[in-house]
């Protein structure tokens, strides 16, 4: 029993990159029972998509 406990997986995930992809991965995992470290190299998350104006084809604001 104790041996099994030692081998147990860690319920946390590191996501590297805080763009739209990293954010989606982080939310899916955090919403389904995992602790997430979201590591971003710049001072805030958002990535390339936050720089776009409207997005095709819905013309929604990228924000």
């Amino acid at each position, binding site marked *: 029993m104790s041996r099994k406990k030692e*081998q*147990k*997986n*860690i*319920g*946390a*995930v*590191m*996501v*590297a*990159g*805080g*763009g*739209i*992809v*990293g*954010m*989606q*991965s*982080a*939310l*899916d*995992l*955090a*919403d*389904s*029972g*995992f*602790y*997430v*470290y*979201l*590591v*971003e*190299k*710049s*001072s*805030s*998350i*958002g*990535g*390339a*998509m*936050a*720089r*776009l*104006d*409207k*997005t*095709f*084809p*819905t*013309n*929604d604001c990228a*924000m």
Partner: protein
Amino acid sequence: MVEVGRHPNIELITLGEILKVDGEPGNFTATIKKKPRYVDETKCIACGECVKKCPKKVPDPYNAGLIKRKAIYVQYEQAVPLKYAIDPEHCLKLTKDKCGNCEEACPTGAIDYGQKEEILEINIGAVILSSGFTPFNPSEYDNYQYSSFKNVVTAMEFERILSAAGPTQGEILTIEKEPKHPKKIAWLQCVGSRDINRAKNEYCSSVCCMYAIKESLIAKEHLGKDFEPSIFFMDIRAHGKDFEKYYERAKKEGVRFIRSRVHTISEDPKTETLRIGYLTESGKVEKEDFDMIVLSVGMTANASARQVADNLGIKLNRYNFVKTDDLMPVSTSRDGIYTAGVMQGCKDIPQSIVEASAAACYAGMKLADARGDLVKEKKFPVENSIKDQSPRIGIFVCNCGANIGGIADVKSIVEYAKTLPNVEYVTENLFTCSQDTQTNMSEIIKENKLNRIVVAACTPRTHEPLFQETLRNAGLNPYLFEMANIRNQCTWVHSKEKEKATAKAKELVKMAAARASLLEAIPDISVNVGNKALAVGGGVSGITAALSLASQGFFTTIVEKSDKLGGAAKHIAKTSNQEDVQTFLADIIEKANNHPNVEVLLNAEVTDASGFVGNFETNIIHNGEEKTLSHGIGIIATGGDATDTEEYLYGKDARVTKWNDFEKAFDKADNPQNIVFIQCVGSRDENRPYCSRVCCTSSVMKALDVKKKFPNTNVFILYRDIRTYGEKERLYKEAREAGVIFIKYDLENKPIVTSGKKYLEVKVFDPILQTNLLIEADLINLATAIAPSDNKKLAAAYKLSVNEDNFFMEAHAKLRPVDFTTDGVFVCGIAHYPKPIEESIAQAMAAASRATIILSKSSIRISPLVSSVDKEKCIGCGLCVEVCSFAAIILEDVEGKGLRAKNIEASCKGCGLCAASCPQKAIDMLHFKEKQIFASIQAAA
């Protein structure tokens, strides 16, 4: 973004760089270098006082360097975390020990020049890499003249020019001393993509055709009907869902598409007009003048990708993207480390998001036994009941530094607020959102027994959740809160009319207080969740989704219409990277048949369904018998297949085949002279105005197989645009090198096939030679359109929508590519849109990931801001049921009364359509009741 920032189980590590990951899958230790921000995140309240005093200007990377920002900055107004940072390379204090203005200006003492780099170690079970891409930099390639001429800009720069938050507030202006609105803009495609001569990037970047079309259409919206956008291209790759329709729309709205090769760009030194010299399809030399040129730059691997790969020991592919296999689309070469998005290869946003969820699914499968071990939940004190209490309103007026206080007279607003009905307590704060004010506020609420709170400050969009949390900390229900937006909607817009701004702020506070008096406590709603799943369709997508769920402990039933699992993949030999599909398929079928958590029902079909997220009941017919399945979520994976056609003698002459029937015909052929492939048979026309996405790659692969076996056979591919997107472009290049002949045809001038005794005769117009060709073909293979299964019945059962082409419609084309508007139902595979096997696998895993969010809980909490029906007033007309897009309201038989509307809280999104359409006014929206809204309107009147 805000959701990520506020999530109790997501810890943001900004300014972080991953140095190494040690250990084994399931138990890694990551070492991270965290660079100093020089601003204490816990103290910074993002008031912006520091920026006003900072003397150092630096080019703003967020705005593609088009304008400057200060050395202390936030990347953009909506940044998460909304905390300033100092750029250590440019800050005068940090570089030369001069200045220090920001420290003086900061009202909360958040500036800390002494912050040092930290090394963090974190313990994790899995890693997901999603570091994105770098846009191609055209400055080294003088043929585009990007460095020489100001009005040659990249598409990223043009995005900022279009943006209302950009350097020109969305006004499109040429870049010169006296800027003017451009009359003509040219977009040049494939800059840094499909180019081995100059850029050394042989792949297609997949997204530039569509973003160029988007930019041209938005520019046209901004600049009006006289504006002339032109797109210079090789092939228009509109290979995604509804892309082709967008392309057709652009043509109708006056975007010119010029199939050409651009050779030179020059500038008239006097007028600064740009001249493009180009070769047309038929080889004619042309030139044309433009005011501005946008380079549709491609995507390249991040320079840091190689570093990360080295640090983590993962393999990259030949283009420096992270290497994955088609049949394991988000797994890297190191177990327990996954990747998603453009870091793995060029793709658009929806496909990136699909992969993001797929990677989350892989991580979840790996760590299924540790689910829930480390999550934290915020604890709040027990809520005090306010039943039978009369309203006691507390009003907090914020100065927001000088943002409000510098314009409106906050003191007089406070005095005014004290005179309003039911108001017990009023105060002003320099910054209401700062941490110490929040703690104080909680105490004030308790001391004064306040039971309604109004904050007059910035905007609820960013700050409402924060204040609601403060209410909960003080034992109040979070819906007893109202905000008056006296900054964004008042002092910011009336900064030059101080008195009027003060008067307006008072009115806004009066409105908020009137509404606050009538606010009610709304309890949380939670619904229990059944943890079984149903997958409709037993192809690669359905099986993959089922196995992903089953391996995490969720029992899944696969309902397959035919008598065999496998779907469309049964006919596919290999993926575009030559991976063996049949071995893979046999393997997953065996797993599905033997997994204790998977039940396979063949010859089974869904007849109807009822229920809502967590609680569905689906009726099926299985081998002629009726059955009911109870399940918490549903996955729609009904697939699709190649259509038949009556064109080109198909079905009349055995030498004309479609898709993979070609292989059989070809096996029998002995050294054939000429083989012809015809593309877009039944796709991209009036009946099916969409591109079937997979056909170009498939035909190019078949052509290569022919050339391999019989190098002397002439192979012709008759096409409209070659859409070997992404890294599939390599196959197209190989085919050209192997001597496959590509001939472009138009919809107006299709090839003509007639049956001769010895040969099939194919007549086609060659636009390069400008003449008709006659090919005597031994075999012809048709790439007929891929169409979805008949989805109408299933769509009706779960209240799902299908588009005009009968593909299922996802909740949001960009951001929610596997969800439906109906909660708890997900889509994947060809049922969503034609796609190659690797994309189906990723989407199936994404669907499983989204489903896991629901299945992993015994109950889910949902927003309680839903509709509520007064059964006494309701007459059962059913209008509300008709208008609801979410299947959230039904008619039920109430004994003695007849039919009455009943809302399903779990499905309700609180949009208010039902309330607005009810002729009896029997429906009210909680928190937005008519009397509450009218109270604030009347207060303003």
